[in-house]
């Protein structure tokens, strides 16, 4: 993993020097990760494709400002992708007063629709991941925040749970992931 990360760092450095071949390799390395995240968050292929293009344009423009102190290349690129996806989701929510994309605005308002959409996406998760070992309640708040771009307050409203409970579950989930992944901070 460290070697992979070092290669990615070198590709970003070369891209910063206008090396398009390096940037192409960087795209090949991370585009499927970004695209799958975009599909999961935005749920519409055309939006996901637009997001992918925007993310890598930003990576191209800002490659020179990247440093390993800002995190691994993957975390940096995914953070850009999530940030842009959340912007789009919030714009869509403002427009449709709903947090899922649908052709039927009335259906979008339905909590059942929301829950089924979340459930459908959950089914796509690889079950050999650390996520599968999280208690359902913890995994749910984590996914609503990470993939649906909901704030802690929105999640509390959506699940009809006290805000404190949502926060506790989020933090417990992150702590548990740390232990499982062996990334506990010193």
């Amino acid at each position, binding site marked *: 993993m460290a070697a992979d990360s070092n290669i990615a760092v070198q590709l970003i450095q070369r891209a910063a020097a206008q090396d398009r071949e390096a940037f192409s390799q960087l795209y090949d390395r991370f585009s499927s990760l970004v695209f799958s995240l975009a599909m999961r968050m935005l749920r519409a292929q055309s939006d996901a494709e637009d997001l992918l293009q925007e993310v890598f344009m930003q990576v191209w423009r800002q490659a020179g400002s990247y440093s390993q102190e800002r995190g691994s290349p993957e*975390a940096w690129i995914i953070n850009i992708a999530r*940030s842009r996806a959340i*912007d789009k989701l919030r714009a869509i929510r403002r427009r449709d007063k709903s947090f899922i994309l649908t052709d039927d605005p009335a259906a979008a308002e339905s909590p059942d629709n929301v829950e089924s959409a979340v459930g459908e996406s959950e089914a*796509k998760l690889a079950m050999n991941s650390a996520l599968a070992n999280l208690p359902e309640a913890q995994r749910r708040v984590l996914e609503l*925040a990470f993939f649906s771009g909901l704030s802690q307050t929105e999640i509390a409203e959506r699940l009809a749970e006290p805000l404190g409970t949502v926060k506790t579950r989020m933090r417990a989930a992150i702590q548990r*992931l740390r232990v499982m992944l062996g990334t506990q901070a010193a």
Partner: protein
Amino acid sequence: MAREHEHWTEQGEIFALGALDGREGEDFEAHLAAGCAICEAHVRETRETLSVLHRALKPINPPGAVKTRLFDQIAKDNVVPIAAARTKQIAPWRKITGALAAGIVGIVIGGTYYRLHYEPRHTVYSAVINLLLDPVTRDHTLFGTGPTTQAKGRFLWNESGEGHIFATNLPTAPEGKMYAVWTIAHNSAPRYVGTITTDANGQGGLHINSTRSEKPIETFAVTLEPQGNTAAPSGPMVLVSKQS
């Protein structure tokens, strides 16, 4: 101190997840903007941990057309990465027209004092160029007010949370005081985003790397505050984006 950081650590994890909102979010962003290296590292580490979430998704290969469009856009827009812009210095700037060019020239002329103790100048230049290249970046004029009506400034702001403030004719802050920079969203409390310092000529600047506000920022202001006061403005306003 340890207890205080326990609180911030808890907030930082939810922040890294992107779910910290409301006053808690604003307070944590102000804490980060004040330069807490512990929390910054903790947020970074938490984001790495959260990588497991997107990795859990089944990878989907994007259509090849997206890559084609991306490289077409790069070629068409002649977008130059930051490092390349640095090495070529002025030349690419000449290709930028209108207000953008004027803006960059203004920055080059005026951009001398931007946190040089902490950041290489070229890094700040590059960051400002990036801000200007983004079509959604807004450019606000700042007007002197209160005790400093002669002061002027500009505030470049991108709703992603990145911005840059320039000030002229703003006297150096008195001993024990500082110039605090605030962003104010509609019906929201002012949010501290950094401290600007000025030199003997009254010139100064600050590059701001905060986080996205829940609501669009409506007003930008600078106030004279006691050193260390980042919770809420208490002193006189010296620069503001709206004329009274």
